[in-house]
């Protein structure tokens, strides 16, 4: 028996990988539950019930998946070109700030114009802030990993400053939150008595759009080429800097839209608790999806249900809801290993 490399793993194996990885995560996660002195079976049943057990649970999971689809796409498109944008968290808040700036009463237009305008503003917000690391990378060779990571902290402090200062809503009883988005800008809910809002439709549309761009356009071809082999791409006349810029605009824009969707859809106003790390979870979403825009939808829903289920579980079983983060982190690492192993084939005999 020996291992042979193969150029392309079969589609069924690629499709199976994320499921296997989440399975591995649940098996390893069981030890953490046993450590907390609970039965993994009871805990996991509570988790599944909490995320898929009722219509309300399902709408909650889908509502949680919405920002993850955006940030997952943001990571997927950037990582395709090997541009390591780890700043989706900050870009999300920039999108949310842009939406707050435009959507809290400066202009009031009918909803069909107002809502797209908010998303465009948010996408611009995300793009603009990502331009800083991009220009530093393309013009000064500063590594984008560290700059995007550090900007997350700067942006969060900036939001904090706005919310404690000029943007503080006097009607909010002292809570640091901004004014509400005006009625025409609020994304309507799509299932009655739930928090599932129109944002998910936009997220699904963006997934298809990104898939089409990557698959059928010259831009998409260039982005993929740069990701595979920079030297070859340069040789064929693709400008690396231009591709990186394109990628960054898409990536930052998508992350910014996540912020708009949360502000105008879920919360209704900007707060510091808008995102419990959606930007970072987006990386796990993208990797589980093998960087495929359509796959992002599935993996975002998967991971979102783990989070929603873990919240419900922590209320019934005595287990901290951080178990969800552990499960997501382990699935991220195991899908990486799985994708590597899928490149090999077991050959029996010599």
């Amino acid at each position: 028996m020996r291992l042979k490399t193969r150029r392309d793993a079969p589609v069924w194996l690629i499709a199976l990988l994320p499921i296997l990885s989440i399975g591995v995560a649940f098996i390893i996660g069981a030890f953490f539950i046993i450590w907390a002195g609970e039965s993994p079976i009871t805990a996991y049943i509570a988790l599944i019930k909490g995320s898929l057990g009722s219509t309300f649970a399902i709408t909650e999971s889908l509502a949680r998946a919405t920002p993850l689809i955006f940030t997952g796409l943001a990571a997927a498109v950037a990582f395709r070109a090997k541009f390591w944008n780890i700043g989706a968290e900050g870009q999300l808040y920039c999108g949310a700030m842009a939406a707050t700036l435009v959507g809290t009463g400066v202009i009031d237009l009918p909803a069909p114009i107002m809502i797209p305008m908010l998303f465009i503003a948010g996408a611009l917000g995300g793009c603009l802030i990502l331009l800083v690391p991009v220009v530093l990378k393309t013009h000064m060779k500063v590594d984008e990993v560290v700059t995007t990571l550090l900007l997350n902290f700067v942006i969060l402090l900036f939001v904090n400053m706005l919310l404690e200062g000029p943007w503080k809503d006097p009607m909010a009883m002292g809570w640091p939150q901004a004014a509400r988005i005006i009625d025409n800008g609020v994304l309507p809910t799509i299932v009655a008595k739930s928090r599932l809002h129109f944002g998910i439709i936009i997220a699904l549309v963006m997934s298809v759009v990104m898939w089409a761009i990557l698959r059928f356009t010259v831009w998409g071809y260039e982005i993929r080429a740069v990701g595979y082999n920079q030297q070859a791409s340069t040789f064929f006349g693709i400008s690396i800097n231009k591709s990186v810029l394109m990628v960054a605009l898409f990536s930052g824009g998508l992350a910014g839209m996540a912020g708009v969707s949360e502000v105008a859809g879920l919360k209704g106003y900007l707060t510091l608790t808008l995102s419990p790390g959606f930007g970072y979870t987006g990386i796990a979403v993208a990797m589980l999806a093998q960087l495929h825009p359509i796959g992002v939808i599935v993996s975002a829903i998967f991971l979102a249900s783990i989070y929603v289920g873990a919240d419900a579980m922590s209320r019934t079983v005595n287990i901290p809801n951080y178990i969800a983060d552990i499960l997501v982190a382990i699935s991220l690492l195991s899908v990486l290993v799985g994708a590597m192993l899928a490149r090999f084939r077991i050959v029996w005999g010599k």
Partner: protein
Amino acid sequence: MMELFEMMLTAGLWASVIRIATPLIFATLGELICERAGVLNLGIEGIMTIGAMAGWIWVYQGGELWGGVVFVAIVGMLFGFLHSILVVYLGLSQHVSGIGITLLASSISYYAYTMLIPFSTTPPKIVPFSAFEVPVLSSIPIIGEAFFNQSALTYLAYILVIVTFYVLYKMPIGLTIRMAGENPVANEAQGINVLLIRTGAVMAGSALMAIGGAFLTMSAFDAFYFGMINGRGWICIALVIFASWRPGKAFLGAILFALFEALQIRAQLIGADVIPYQIFSMMPYFLSIVAMMLVARRAAYPKALLVPFRQGDRI
């Protein structure tokens, strides 16, 4: 301006500079060792978090302080080992794997902390390392008080700067480590197991990162807070580049950075009425970005950094 100048000469300021610098010294040295062997370790932020948590829990449950440091180092090594399996042996993306390690280590820290201390509004405290005056040296005016009236962990950090320098530049194993990051093929030609060297370096480096985190709970403060590492790990990655991968410069870089941080904290108190404190708090992150801009163009990255090595490969 005069006030600022006078402040620069007080021992109090410099003592706090050293306190701020200590965790950065540990973690920057740790990252430096990893990168010198050719492995970027973005697990740093998470490993510091779990170091802070593990050391605190150890002492909280009645363990000895120094026993806690050993425990923390072992925990750090375990995560370093995991990172090595993924990026050294399996050759996976160092960026994604490192972020994965950070997510895993920080979520385990928060999980364990919430599980062990379930309902507390104020975080419970431990008795941390106390300051220890080094005889003779501490009587030097200003410098003595600042540098030599610190906790034992700070002295450990000073020693580690020298040890890291000595090992990397004066010992055969150091040459081997640096070669693993520059030209691993040459290592292999000598019959050295590159994968083992890289694994060892990543584990040692991760142990230092974990101790850096533990300094926060076992010396600088006496409790564990959520989000207490607050980007220090990422700042250390910038510091390694700023220090052009040299232990001595890493030490100076950490001190310089800590000086700005200490001045920033003091300025917050003075200027709070005029300028929002958040502006000051942003400074450390901006400073790290500016530091990288200054050196990025001529930064001499280890040549095999980020490049997985497979035995028998030829370039």
